[in-house]
């Protein structure tokens, strides 16, 4: 194992040890981020099992959280850690590192845009004279040696014209080899974070327990956790909600009540979109303290405060079974056939005029023909995705997002 983290370690660990490893790693990474003196941390020793496990566990957490800010945090800090370690390597250590990487590359199934250049680079760094040169003589001006890579393996250098390119081959001078190694590390990590499919691992309560600890630790340092929604800014932010949630929000604001099922769904959505517990309480209190406007609900805050509080806290995993409830996915919402429901997927359950009005309320004139096309084909999620992409110059990779799309993902993408 190396601190390049090409492949995860295998084995068994007790859950509390796993949690400690990941939390200690977070602390270490945060110290690096805050430019504090790097202290010895037994959980983060290069090449150790704990180091490897901690890294992959953190990747897992980031993939489950699906938070842009958390992705950025992991990428930034892990890259900084890698950079720090690389700098501290002696010529001899660099050779050993490169040799180890070569052995692992041969055994691991990697993205070729990373394994190919990495292999070439390591083949040279494993040789005495090159490793020694990099460690001792090479500086920012040095161009004693050049390595050849295909131009599409050096995009970061290419786009800034930092290397010469001839016939499709980029010539990377030795002064850039360390930087290149860091770029390859970052690309590999990015690929892992954005392309790994986890099969329902987040429904494992042991994992969700660890994720909760991570969130708690991050919030202590005010590291950006998913964007905070408050009872004050939710109206403004609702403009970015998916149509199903815009609908629920509007219903709630108009009638001050929602049916049980819809209240549950909407609360979960708000929680997963970054509304903290105290804000959620304020939000629901405000609505349920007003009298219902054309809604048959008989509850009100004054009478049922205890029940409401318990329910909300339960949802946040602080009462009862302490489960981590997640917002329903699009697939699940589309499965709701309830005729009298205020909710559901608008693309499926609303008739055209209703849908048109709902979509117009958060956008200016969407091209409905394409959306109607998809609705006819019963591709409601795709219709929603099409709606999401209106007016967005950056292409959102639908192929990545389409699997298990959720209202929270919609909001996260829109909120970027």
């Amino acid at each position, binding site marked *: 194992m190396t601190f390049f983290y090409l492949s995860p370690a295998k084995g068994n660990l007790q859950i509390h040890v796993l949690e400690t490893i990941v939390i200690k790693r977070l602390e270490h990474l945060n110290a690096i981020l805050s430019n504090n003196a790097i202290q010895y941390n037994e959980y983060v020793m290069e090449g150790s099992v704990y180091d490897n496990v901690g890294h992959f566990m953190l990747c897992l957490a980031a993939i489950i959280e699906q938070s842009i800010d958390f992705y950025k945090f992991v990428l930034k800090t892990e890259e900084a850690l890698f950079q720090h370690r690389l700098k501290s390597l002696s010529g001899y250590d660099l050779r050993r590192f490169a040799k180890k990487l070569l052995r692992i590359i041969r055994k691991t199934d990697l993205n070729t845009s990373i394994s190919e250049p990495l292999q070439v680079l390591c083949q040279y760094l494993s040789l005495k004279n090159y490793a020694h040169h990099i460690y001792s003589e090479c500086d920012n001006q040095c161009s004693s040696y050049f390595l050849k890579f295909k131009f599409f393996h050096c*995009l970061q250098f*290419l786009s800034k014209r930092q290397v010469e390119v*001839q016939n499709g081959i980029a010539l990377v001078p030795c002064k850039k080899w360390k930087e290149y190694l860091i770029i390859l590390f970052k690309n590999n990590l990015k690929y892992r974070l954005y392309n790994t499919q986890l099969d329902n691992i987040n429904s494992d309560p042991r994992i969700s327990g660890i994720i909760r600890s991570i969130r708690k630790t991050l919030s202590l340092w005010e590291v950006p956790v998913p964007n905070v929604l408050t009872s004050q800014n939710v109206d403004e932010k609702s403009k970015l909600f998916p149509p199903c949630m815009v609908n629920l929000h509007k219903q709630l604001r108009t009638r001050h009540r929602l049916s049980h099922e819809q209240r549950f769904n909407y609360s979960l959505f708000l929680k997963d979109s970054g509304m903290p517990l105290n804000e959620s309480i304020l939000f629901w209190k405000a609505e349920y303290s007003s009298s219902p406007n054309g809604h048959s609900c008989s509850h009100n805050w004054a009478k049922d405060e205890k029940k409401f509080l318990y329910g909300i806290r339960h949802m946040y995993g602080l009462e009862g079974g302490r489960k981590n409830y997640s917002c329903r996915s699009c697939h699940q919402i589309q499965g709701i056939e309830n005729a009298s429901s205020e909710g559901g997927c608008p693309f499926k359950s609303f008739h055209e005029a209703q849908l048109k009005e709902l979509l117009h309320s958060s956008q200016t004139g969407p091209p409905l023909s394409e959306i109607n096309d*998809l609705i006819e084909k019963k591709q409601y999620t795709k219709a929603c995705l099409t709606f999401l992409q209106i007016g967005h110059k950056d292409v959102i990779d639908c192929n990545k997002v389409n699997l298990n799309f959720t209202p929270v993902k919609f909001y996260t993408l829109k909120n970027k």
Partner: protein
Amino acid sequence: MAKQYDEGMLSDMLPIYYSRHFPQSLFCRWLSCGNYPQPLANRELSFTLADDVYLRYLSISNQKELQTLFQKKCPHKLDIGPVYNIKPSIGRHDAIVLARELVFDIDLTDYDEIRTCCQEANVCDKCWRFMVIACEVINTALKEDFGFQNILWVFSGRRGIHCWVSDHDARTLDSPGRTAVADYLCLITGGDNQNKKVNLVGDNLHSSIRRSINIIDKYFNIIVQEQEFFSTKEGLSKLLRVIPDETLRKQTEETLDKLAPSSLERWEAFIQIYNQFCKHNNVRKIKYLIEEIKIQYCYPRLDVHVTKGFNHLLKSPFSIHPKTGKVSVVFKPENINSMKLDSVPTIHTLLDDSAKENTQHEANMRTAIKSFQEVVFLLEKTEALRRKTETSISLDF
């Protein structure tokens, strides 16, 4: 009596054009090569019919189907899209893009802030010179820096040029790759509010920049004279806005203002002032100012969005431009200098034997098709060679 081009007659003329003049076979061969290993049927085509009816997700399996589709639909506009993993009419939104040529789009409207002879939709042989420079700079970069060999240059039909690169590495380049290539080639940045749009940093110029300057230098004096960049008050103040050093700017203003309104004279005077200035002052900030100005005035202005995306639909070679009636002819980059806009064949002159330009335009059309043929032949050859080496590699144990 030569008739004027009439857009209303397109629906009558196009079917004849498509049957008799459009190089259907070469078109299918060119696309098929770009599709490999996918079949031709996986390539998306889109038609815009009369009355702006827009048809997407069309495809053809062979030339016969193309001819049938042309006759049935009579498209006023013909666009080419990417290669999907499945026939586009079946896959539609769910289909995955597998490949698409690397494309570049250079349009003279992006030079409106620089060219003095025309604006917006207008174009003349004087401002065409910008396209000559753009073509040479981009073509050389694609060949020498990236090693691409299968490059097709097409006149866009009104006031620009398109470039299609069919090499395997270009076709399969992903979006970050295309973005990087676009950024590599793009030297002019900044919007309307930016005065100085080129900033060359570093101790040495990248060899591609140096090479581009050498190409620009071949045409710079001519273009300065033709465009009279610095002759008017407005033109002079535009130049002054690009000079970052206040002292140098003042000196330049005072001297040039007094000179006769000959742009070339003024430019040469500026060079003198600049060289003198550099002898007696700290040069660092303005080390490459002359090069930066040349680039800002003459370097290709790409529409980077076209290059970065790979599911853009781009106008097809040999399609007819509805507004001008001109054919989007293929040309050889070495001939762009001698290309005259009036000699580009139009649907009208091709179909009407009595038209004055008929003979000349028909000849030019034949030349264009021949150029297309050469590109397609080379592409087929390169592809065949590549597939052979690929299979022999996979057989090695």
